[in-house]
């Protein structure tokens, strides 16, 4: 079975230590977490982990089973890239001089649909949301001019198919 990119969505309680428990499952199988994001979800007091891994479907299935088994996990899903709408977010910190001296910078901002988040005396900050390759493209365009700092978030994703967490929670309660 070949390695592919998989996005794992985990709905859970928001408890101290759960991240440790979940990351341990990846550690145990020697699978690197390529990206990780934790946020609130559409359900009140339920957290959502979005984890990206590059592995086989057999392993991702296995991992999802093990993750789901954790007491504080409500449900875990895995998706291939076709099953989801996903984005990442990036910030670029650039020297202020460039904004005024290099006309090309403004074109890069415009072409990439990037936004200027802030402008200070010495630097300005650009934000860019999109797929990994779109952010990489902008990175490559800015790099020759000098990037003072760069950071990219983990992937965030919503699935095309329904994730029926509320009804699951209800089911658990009535079992």
């Amino acid at each position, binding site marked *: 079975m070949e390695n592919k990119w998989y996005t794992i969505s985990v709905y859970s309680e928001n408890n*101290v*230590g759960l991240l440790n*428990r979940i990351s341990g499952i990846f550690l145990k199988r020697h699978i690197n977490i390529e990206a990780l994001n934790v946020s609130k979800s559409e359900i009140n007091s339920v957290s959502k982990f979005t984890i990206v891994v590059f592995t086989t479907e057999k392993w991702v299935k*296995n991992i999802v*089973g093990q993750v789901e*088994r954790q*007491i*504080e996990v409500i449900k875990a899903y895995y998706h291939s890239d076709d099953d989801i709408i996903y984005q990442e977010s990036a910030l670029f910190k650039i020297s202020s001089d460039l904004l005024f001296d290099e006309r090309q910078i403004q074109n890069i901002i415009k072409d990439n649909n990037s936004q200027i988040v802030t402008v200070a005396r010495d630097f300005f900050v650009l934000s860019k949301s999109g797929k990994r390759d779109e952010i990489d493209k902008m990175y490559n365009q800015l790099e020759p001019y000098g990037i003072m700092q760069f950071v990219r978030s983990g992937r965030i994703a919503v699935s095309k198919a329904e994730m029926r967490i509320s009804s699951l*929670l209800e089911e*658990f309660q009535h079992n």
Partner: protein
Amino acid sequence: METLKETKTIEKSKATIKISGAEAIIHCLLAEGVDLLYGYPGGAIMPVYDELYKFQDKLTHILTRHEQGATHAAQGYARVTGKVGVAMATSGPGATNLVTGLADAQIDSTPMVCITGQVPRHLLGTDAFQETDIIGISTPVTKWNYQVTRAEEIPKILAKAFYIARSGRPGPVLVDITKNAQFEEINFSYEACIGVRSYNPYPKIDTTQVEAAAELINSAKKPFIVFGQGVILGEAEAQLKSLIEKTGIPAAWTILGVAALNSEHSLNVGMVGMHGNYAPNLLTNECDLLIAIGMRFDDRVTGNLDTYAKQAKIIHFDIDPAEINKNVKVDVAVLGNAKDTLNLLLPLVKDNKHQSWHNVFKEKYQIEFDTLINKDIHPTKEKLTMGEVIEQINQASNNSAVIVTDVGQHQMVACRYAKFNQTKSNITSGGLGTMGFALPAAIGAKMGAMDREVVAIIGDGGYQMTIQELGVIFQHNVPVKIVVLNNDHLGMVRQWQELFFEKRYASTVMVNPDFVKIAEGYHIKSKRVSKRSELKSTIEEMLASKDPYFLEVKVEKEDNVFPMIPSGASVSDIRLK
């Protein structure tokens, strides 16, 4: 499902009293029906021990000689009673010494609650004296763990701990309680936990899967059952028996499942796995339907997965969804408690005999008996064998003893030859393979089943890993019977060195102390046997003793355990020699 309903009927205790967190812990334990726990005191857990002193008429604390012993004793107690075992330790080294027992309980699905003391809340994260991050350390080896830093959390968290430990697929839970939380006062009231929002221990049974299973069973020509500890944990022994008797399907067991079915049942065809019996291993690759009940296709059971039961359709009954298709891809998966799923299955399966298929098992057994078993249990050579010791124990105990084994050759021999006529009788470290397990586990088993004969069978290596627990046996006069099968080697490793490492016996030769004198030092009646003529009478004497008894049997030094599936080989490549 029953457990859940039961807990729902436990009434909320209405009275509220103002007590310390430490005392609250005791009340929680009592409310959960705990009357016995194992542990070791120390700085960060002292307030709880002070309360244990006050409550000693209601709650017996057994001081083991090492915290690892406390966990194994709690496991032994849990395995023989089906109740949650409880172990307690202080922070730092006390807590880290629990780790092996937690890992053992996790992999063998044993319900256990461990309570550890922790440095006061204001010192957390400061590298305080005896501070260790036991939550971080124990996370991968617990079903759940939690750090309590305020007394008011104690009742709810301990209720949740017991619920999680015993429900669904059982397992160990660790609750770490900071010292300030033990001192703080709370208004105590206790409410048993009846559910956790994100946790679904009893999956809803899909009846279409049960029907699909029945259809496969009814049309199979050469069906074969392999059952594991899930039958015992789910209390489905009667259902299993009805199933095999109705369908006439031969049934084999994993090492943890053995006592779920009477050893002398005509359809009991023995053990699967690396040192299991010849017929069930060989015929795993000839059956047309493999019905796995409450087992998890461990690598020691399956050997090489690429050649495991490829010709067969496979049905998997299990309570844990994560086990389905984990190692072996199955055709039908029936999720749920074995008792409930088998009860639904039973009316759907047809009466059958499968006589000629069963005869194949008998023929293969005869081959194994003639080449191996007979020589193991009725040897004619001068030196004693492990097998004949087990056989004598069977006879002297009428197959009714609880057999607790350690890890290694003696474990395999004991599990192959020990006979059981009741469930919850075989206590061994199956998944983790923890040497040193047996002696403390036997203490817990005996204290959990005082009316039963408990025999610990231990190798000379493992015995010395937890030998200090003889102190508990002496102090509390726990009448366990300890049999050390002494071959002056780490026998199983030596066997592998002989077979796979050209007899380079690296660090497997043991120069042993006088075990009889050690036992005598603890005032435990003891004897050493090295002649066949003395064996039977000494075992009878041991079993007749009302007191603890230590027996060292000097056995052949370089015997090997066969059959054997070499590591990585197929189950059908099982070697008889």
